[in-house]
Each structure stands twice: as C-alpha cells, then as structure tokens.
C-alpha cells in the first residue's frame, strides 16, 4: 500500500484509497461541504453523489433564488443517481411541496426499491403515502411527520418485519389504523407518537403486544377519553408521557416492573381541573395518579411534572405507591405550597437508593397554586418534623426557589437527615430581593448538618 509520490513524501496518498473509502469520508460531511468536494479533482467529482446517507432539508437552501426548484432538482439527482450503492439512510424535509406534483411518490418508490433502511420524511403539503411503504421488508427505522393528514390503513395492510423504530408526528389515525400500523411492526423496539390523534366512532384501546418493545414515548397526543393503553412489559425500560388526560389513558396500566426510566408530564387546563374538583372529583385525580406511579415500582429514574404532584395533594393520606426501592434519580416540578412540599417530601423520603434530587419550583401565578387559595384541600400530615436518616442522597438542586416557609422546612429537613449529602445548590427565583436573599442565606447556613462534607451553593 505504501509508495512514493512525486513530492518525495513517503507513504500513501489519499487518492490511492479505493473509491468506497473516499466516499465514506465525504459522507461524513454536511451537504454544503460535500458539494465542495466535487471541485477537488476528477476522481472526486461525483463522489459526493454516491453517498448512501443523506439529510436533505429545504431550509439549507435559504437565500438561494428559486430555492424550491433547485432543492427538488437536488433531491432528484441524489435519489435517481445511477451507479452507486443504494441509499440506506435518508432524511427529507420539504416544507413547501406542491401536492399536485408527482415527484414525492417517485422518490419514495425509488427509495423502497433501493432497500432503504432508515427513512425520515417530513413533506408539506402532506402526500398520500403509498401502501408499499408499509410493506417494506428492509426498513429498520421509519419516521414520518404527517402534518395532520388522515391516515387510514386497512387491517393487515402493514407488514414491516424488520422495523425497530417507529416515530410518528402529527398523524390523524382513523379508526384502528394506528393499531394496524403497530401490529404490522413485529419486532418493534421504540414507539414514539408526537401530536398524534386517534379519530374514531367508538372507544378504542391501543395495544402494543411486541415483547421486543423497550421504549414508548407519547408526547402531546390526543386519544379518545377512555382509550386504554396496553403494553408488553417484558423488556420495556423507558416510558415517557407528556400531554393531557394522563389519568384517562393510564387508568388501566399494568405494573411495569421492567421500566427503569419513567417520565410523566401531564398537563391540565386549570379551569377544567378546578371545575372537576368542585364537582367532587378531586379524590379520583389523586387515586389515579397514585395508582399510575405504583405501576412503575422498579424505576431507577423518574421525572414528574407539577401536575403529578398536584393530583397527589388531593389524597395526602391515601397515597398508595411502593417506596421505589431502586430509584436513583428524581426530577420534579412543584408549586410553592404546603401540599406540594408534603408530596415531594414523601417521594424523597422513602426510596433507599435515591442519590440525586432536582426540584423546580414554579411561581404561584394562578389561583389555586398558593396556600391561601387552597383551603379546600386536605391538610397534609406533618412529615418534616420526623427524623429519618437518608443514607444515599448525594446531590440536591433546587431551581427558582421562592422561599415559602414550607420550602425552608424542606431544606432544613434534608440538611438534617441526609448524612451523605455532598452538594446542595439553590438558585433563587428572580422575585427574591437582595436583602431577603442575604438573610435567607444566613438562615440556611445556620441549620444543623448531618453530612460532614457538604458543599452548599446558594446563588
């Protein structure tokens, strides 16, 4: 492989390498730099077009005159480039596509013939997706942004035998189309649904039966109110939920013993919530949340939004979840009131392996968030005066700390009981003035410390 070149330098020059290696190098470059390489020398002229890995986004053509046409020309050149190995990975973002053009169907057809492995399509106007896309036996990862297009898939229309990752955004699924799609992915590992809607005449449960399933992410989706979610739990390790109506969807969750990472971030309309509470449904919110948490009894990492905490303040004496024997890190958001401090303390107190705690305290910017507005809530039991040595807690961070008395009590409690605490950092909420900060800093510094080597950061 070694040879001498004209300049007398020892060793191999880059153009002595086989073309596929040169192509691998060029493939590591972003689009603009790839094109530059076509000017290097004759051997490199068409190298960039033979890459099997593409990311084509209209926004990269910003400032180009007639950009839509130029972009589509490039996509044509890339997808229909003759002598080269197949395209294996392609991300195509075309947000100014004209539905009357037939190009997109031809692109997809060609990619499917090229035995594509990884396809990520975001085309607007939404195009009718060919059924052959859902019967491709090479696809391993499929990501589709559907721009609120209605998707109707007959049962048994889908067979994606190698697909591991299915990510769908803004799809409106008619009837059991979503279920058909899930059923056709026999080896599914990751399912991500973002801003998806299920439209149907009747209540439809969603079942993900694949035992290969490891990760489920549901982000701002709208299912029907009583949609139940059934998942295979054999290998599931990550579950993330963001959006409305957690109680409704999760009502019938089985115990997910395998889950190691759970993120529950429900949101709620304040008006709907307080109306339901006035109608007497406060206990239901609390019990559902309590049961949902109990389903993730073996989790190692947990993220909870302020609404999770809020639901639980409705049933302080009836929280029913195990002590999370394996929990190592806990991140949660809360409102500045006694009820939330109680629930937080309860969550922090019992997990024996908990090492990291992050609290984010939001301002009481709405009615019902501060203590004065919460006279109709059950009075929480006193937890903070108990003695409870916590052996493993090492790091605590508190963000947007607004210094309510109950919050101070929580800090006092942590300092008194966490014998291994190494770092406590507190960031103030902007509303706390300088003199108040100073006096609070002194107050906190005067609290008894259980830990011998604590670094205290009070910003």
């Amino acid at each position, binding site marked *: 492989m070694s040879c001498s070149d004209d300049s007398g330098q020892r060793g191999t020059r880059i153009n002595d390498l086989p073309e596929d290696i040169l192509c691998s*190098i060029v493939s590591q470059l972003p689009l603009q730099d790839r094109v530059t390489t076509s000017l290097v020398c*004759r051997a490199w*002229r068409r190298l960039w077009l033979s890459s099997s890995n593409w990311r084509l986004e209209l926004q990269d053509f910003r400032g180009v005159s007639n950009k839509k046409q130029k972009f589509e020309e490039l996509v044509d050149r890339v997808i229909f480039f003759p002598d080269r190995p197949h395209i294996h990975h392609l991300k195509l973002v075309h947000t100014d596509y004209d539905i009357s053009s037939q190009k997109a169907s031809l692109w997809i057809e060609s990619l499917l013939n090229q035995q594509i492995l990884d396809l990520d399509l975001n085309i607007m106007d939404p195009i009718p997706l060919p059924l052959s896309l859902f019967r491709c036996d090479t696809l391993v990862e499929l990501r589709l942004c559907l721009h609120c297009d209605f998707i109707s898939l007959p049962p048994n229309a889908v067979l994606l035998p190698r697909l591991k990752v299915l990510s769908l955004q803004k799809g409106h699924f008619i009837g059991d189309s979503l279920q058909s799609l899930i059923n056709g992915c026999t080896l599914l590992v990751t399912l991500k649904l973002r801003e998806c809607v299920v439209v149907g005449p009747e209540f439809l449960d969603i079942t993900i039966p694949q035992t290969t399933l490891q990760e489920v992410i549901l982000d701002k989706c709208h299912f029907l109110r009583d949609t139940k979610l059934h998942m295979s739990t054999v290998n599931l390790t990550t579950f993330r939920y963001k959006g409305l109506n957690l109680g409704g969807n999760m009502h019938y969750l089985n115990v997910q013993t395998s889950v190691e990472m759970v993120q529950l971030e429900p949101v709620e309309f304040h008006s709907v919530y307080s109306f339901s509470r006035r109608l007497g449904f406060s206990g239901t919110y609390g019990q559902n949340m309590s049961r949902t948490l109990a389903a993730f009894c073996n989790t190692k990492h947990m993220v909870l939004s302020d609404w999770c905490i809020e639901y639980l303040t409705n049933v302080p004496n009836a929280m029913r979840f195990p002590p999370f024997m394996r929990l190592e890190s806990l991140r949660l958001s809360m409102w500045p009131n006694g009820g939330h401090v109680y629930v937080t303390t309860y969550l922090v107190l019992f997990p024996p392996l908990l090492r990291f705690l992050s609290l984010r305290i939001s301002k009481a910017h709405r009615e019902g968030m501060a203590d004065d507005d919460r006279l109709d809530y059950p009075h929480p039991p006193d937890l903070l005066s108990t003695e409870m040595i916590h052996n493993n807690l090492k790091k605590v961070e508190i963000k947007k700390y607004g210094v309510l008395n109950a919050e101070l009590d929580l800090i006092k409690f942590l300092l008194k009981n966490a014998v291994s605490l190494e770092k406590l950092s507190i960031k103030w909420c902007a509303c706390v003035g300088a003199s108040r900060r100073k006096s609070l800093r002194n107050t906190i510094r005067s609290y008894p410390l259980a830990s011998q080597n604590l670094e205290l950061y009070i910003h």
Partner: protein
Amino acid sequence: MSTESKEILVGESSQAKPEKKTIVLMASDGDEFVVDVDDITNQSEMIRNLISDMGGTDGLQVPLLNVTAPVLAKLLELFNVSNKNDDDEEVTQKVKELMEAELNMMIDVLGAANYIEATSFFDLSCKVLADKFKGMSVEEVREFLNIECDFTEEELQQIHAENAWAFD
C-alpha cells in the same frame, strides 16, 4: 498471568476463567503480531468471522497481505486505546494527532481498518478526517490532502453551474 489461570483451573474447573487466547496477525512483510482474541474480535468483523468459520482460534495465523508492519503496529496501538476506553473521546484524539503529524500513515491506517472491517474505528477515522476539512475552501482541501487539481477551466465552470445553489 498463565500460572495464575492454571491454579484456578485446578481449584474449580467448571467455573474457571479460560486462559487468555491469542492469535497471530502477519503483516505483508512477514512480521508477526500476537494479539488478544477478545481485543481484536471486538474491533474486526473480518477476524471475528474468520474465527467462527475456522471453528476456533487454535494456532490461527492471519496473513494481512495489504498491511505493512508499521501500519499494523499503529492500528493495533489505536485499537488498544479504543478497547481501554468506554467512550470514543480518547481514541478520536489519538487519530486526530496522527492525522496532524503523519497524514500518510493515517491514510494507511484508514485503508487497513477498512480491509479488516473494523467498522466503528473506520467510521470514527473518516469522521476525524472529514471534520478537518469541514468549512475549508476547495483549495484548502487540495492543499491539506496534497491533491493536484486536474480539471480544465471549462470543467470547473460546468461543475459550478451544476451546483450553483451551493456555490453562490
């Protein structure tokens, strides 16, 4: 190390750790390199397949006709860095240093990694090289890689016209 393993073998034969296995890689000039089987199969798909085809590692000698001794030595040195670290940071740094100091050697290493199908090391090295000429002008790329421009002025203009969106 070998005595230690044998003692364990006598004590509890069924649970004993097997002795570390090695194979021999032969460079194009005949130099032999003894390598740990786990270390090399961790990197090289070709050798992994070879061992499974041969049904074992006993006395296995693998001639690498395309790789000279200095290149193989450098490649094994980098594999060693890669095997010792969980993330790629350290080995990326070493490949970068090699590229800056001896580009020709780095190119040979890249060819050898491709030849023995050390896929992840190969991809990492391609990335290091590509990162170097990211953002460079074409003249800078040519200079860095020591490539002569063999285009005519007409051809250059034609390429410019084909990809006007990228160059304007």
